[in-house]
C-alpha cells in the first residue's frame, strides 16, 4: 500500500544543533502510528515541520505522493493534514460550536458562495452548524457546545483540541501529546475518544503516556536526539534493548 504521509530524509537544525536528522516516516491510510522518545528528542519539532509551522532545512514531506514541503500551514489543512496541540491552543472566547463550525466553513469554502460566507449569519448556515453539533456530540461535547471555551474544564478542552482537528475532515491527523496535563491513569476518557476516531484516518500519535501509546498504536517509532532509533510493532519496541536503555528508569510496559 502507498503511504498517505511520508517524510524523506527530513533534516532540520537550529544553528549547529541538529534537531531532526534524516527522518523517514511513512504512514499508510488508516495507520495508528505512535512517535515516542525522551524529552528533547525533537517530536514536536517534527510535527511542526509536517504541518508547516517550521520549515525543514532539507528533505521533503509528501502528502498522498505530493510534495507539500513548501506549502503554508492552512493549505496543508485544506489538503487533509490536521493537527492538535500539546498545550491547549484554542479560541478562549469562542464556544466549541463556533470553533468547530468555523473550521467546517474553512473546509467547505471552495464550494460555498460568497453571499453565504460573507453576508449570511452563522446560525443561518444550517448545514455547517448541524455538522458541528453532530461532531461535538460524537466526542461527548454536546453539553459544552455553547459554553465559552475558557470556562470549560481542562479535560474537555483537550477533547475540543481533537474536535477542532476533526472538523477539517483530515486524511491524516497528528495528535501532539493529547494526554498532556491529564493525570496519569485518568487518560481512559481520552482513550475512549481516540478509540472512536474514524478508521480511515491515518493517525500519528505523539505521547508520553506509555499506557495510552501501547493500547492505541499498531506501529511505533522511537525518536532519539532527532534521529529515528527504531520502528516496529509495540511488541518489538517493548522487547528492544536499545529502547529499554533510552527509557531506563522510565519503565516501558
Amino acid at each position, binding site marked *: 500500500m502507498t503511504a498517505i504521509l511520508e517524510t524523506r530524509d527530513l533534516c532540520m537544525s537550529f544553528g549547529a544543533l541538529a534537531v531532526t536528522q534524516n527522518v523517514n516516516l511513512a504512514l499508510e491510510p488508516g495507520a495508528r502510528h505512535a512517535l515516542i522518545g525522551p524529552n528533547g528528542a525533537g517530536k514536536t519539532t517534527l510535527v511542526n515541520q509536517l504541518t508547516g509551522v517550521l520549515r525543514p532545512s532539507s528533505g521533503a514531506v509528501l502528502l498522498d505522493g505530493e510534495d507539500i514541503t513548501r506549502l*503554508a500551514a492552512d493549505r496543508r489543512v485544506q489538503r487533509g493534514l490536521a493537527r492538535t496541540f500539546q498545550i491547549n491552543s484554542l479560541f478562549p472566547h469562542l464556544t466549541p460550536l463556533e*470553533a468547530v463550525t468555523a473550521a467546517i466553513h*474553512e473546509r467547505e469554502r471552495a464550494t460555498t458562495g460568497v453571499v453565504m460566507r460573507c453576508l449570511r*449569519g452563522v*446560525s443561518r448556515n444550517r448545514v*455547517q452548524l448541524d455538522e458541528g453539533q453532530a461532531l461535538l456530540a460524537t466526542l461527548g461535547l454536546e453539553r459544552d457546545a455553547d459554553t465559552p471555551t475558557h470556562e470549560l474544564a481542562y479535560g474537555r478542552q483537550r477533547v475540543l483540541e481533537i474536535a*477542532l482537528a476533526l472538523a477539517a475532515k483530515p486524511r491524516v491527523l497528528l495528535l501532539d501529546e493529547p494526554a498532556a496535563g491529564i493525570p496519569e491513569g485518568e487518560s481512559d476518557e481520552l482513550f475512549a475518544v481516540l478509540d472512536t476516531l474514524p478508521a480511515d484516518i491515518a493517525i500519528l500519535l505523539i505521547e508520553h503516556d506509555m499506557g495510552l501509546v501501547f493500547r492505541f498504536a499498531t506501529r511505533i517509532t522511537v525518536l532519539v536526539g532527532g534521529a529515528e532509533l527504531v520502528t516496529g510493532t509495540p511488541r518489538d519496541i517493548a522487547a528492544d534493548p536499545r529502547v529499554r536503555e533510552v527509557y531506563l528508569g522510565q519503565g516501558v510496559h
Partner: protein
Amino acid sequence: MSLLKRSDHPLARRERWKLGEIVFWVAIAAVYFVFPKSLVLASQILIAGLFALSLDLILGYAGIVTLGHAAYFGVGAYAAGLLAKHGWTEPVSGLFIAALASALVGWLSSFLVLRGGDLARLMTTLGIAALLYELANRASPITGGVDGLQGVEIAKVLGVFGFDLYGRTAFGYTLVVVFALFVVARAWVNSPYGLSLRAIRENPVRARAVGVPLHRRLVTVYIVSAAFAGVAGALLTQTTQFVALDVLSFQRSANLLIMLIIGGTATLYGGFVGAAIFMLVQNQLASINPTYWLFYLGLLLIVITLFLRRGVVGGLLIARERWFLKRAAR
C-alpha cells in the same frame, strides 16, 4: 439530527436585530424632527461614527492596531472633492469612486502594515498617514494645501434633493448611506467570514491550523475597512463641500481611536456612541472653556479605559447580561 431549537440558540439570538438596535436607529432618524437646528453636527457625528465603525472592523474584529486610519478617510475625502471640483458632481457615484480609491490605497499599504507585529503596525500606519498628509500639503496646486480644497460643488442627490444651508439633505443622505453600510458590516461580522476573523484575533496560530488563510483574511478586512473610511471621508466632503488638510492629520487618527475606545470595540455600535459622546463633549466643553477642554476629555478617557474596559456599549452589554442572569436565578 436536530439538536438545537434554532430560534432559541445563542448564535441565532446574537444575530437577530434587537429592540435596542431598532430604537437606536429610529432615535437617530428622529433627530431630523427633534433637533432641526443641529443637523450639521448630527451629520458629522454620523460620519465620525461610520469612520469609527471602519476602525472597529480591523481593530475590534481582526485585532489590527493602527494610528493612521485617517489616511483612508483623507483619500476618500480628497477623491470625492477632486471629482466634484473637476465636474463629476453626482454624489452617489462619487462615493463609490472615493471608496474604490481608498480601497486601492488600503490594498497597497496592506503589504506594509500587515507584515509586522503590533508595534510595527502602529509605526507603519502612522508613517503612511504622515506621508499622505505631507503629499497633500505639498501638492497645493491640486489639493489646495493648507488652505483646503475649495470650489467643491455637489449636484442634487438622485437629482431631487439639493444640499441646503440647514443640513437637512446632508443629514438624510448621510443617514441613509451610513445605515446601509452598517447593515452590510453587521451581516459581515455575524457571517462565517466574521467568525474566522474572531478566530484569528483569538489565536492566529490555531486559526491557521484549522485552515484559515490568515494573511488573505487580514488583507481583505483591511481593504474593506479602508473603503468604509473612504466613504466616511467622501461624505464629509460632499456634505460640507470643502476638504481641509486635516482630514489626513494624526489628530484625526488619534481622535478616532479615542472615540472607538470610549464607545467600545467589537460591538458595532461602539463607534457611533463614542463619536456622539466625543463630539458632544467637545462641543459643550469647548463652549464652556475653549482652552482647557482637552483636560476633561483626558479625564473621561482615563476613567472609561480603567473602569469600563469594553467602553460604554460593552459596559451596557455586560450590565444587561448580569440583569438577565439575576432574573433567571430568581
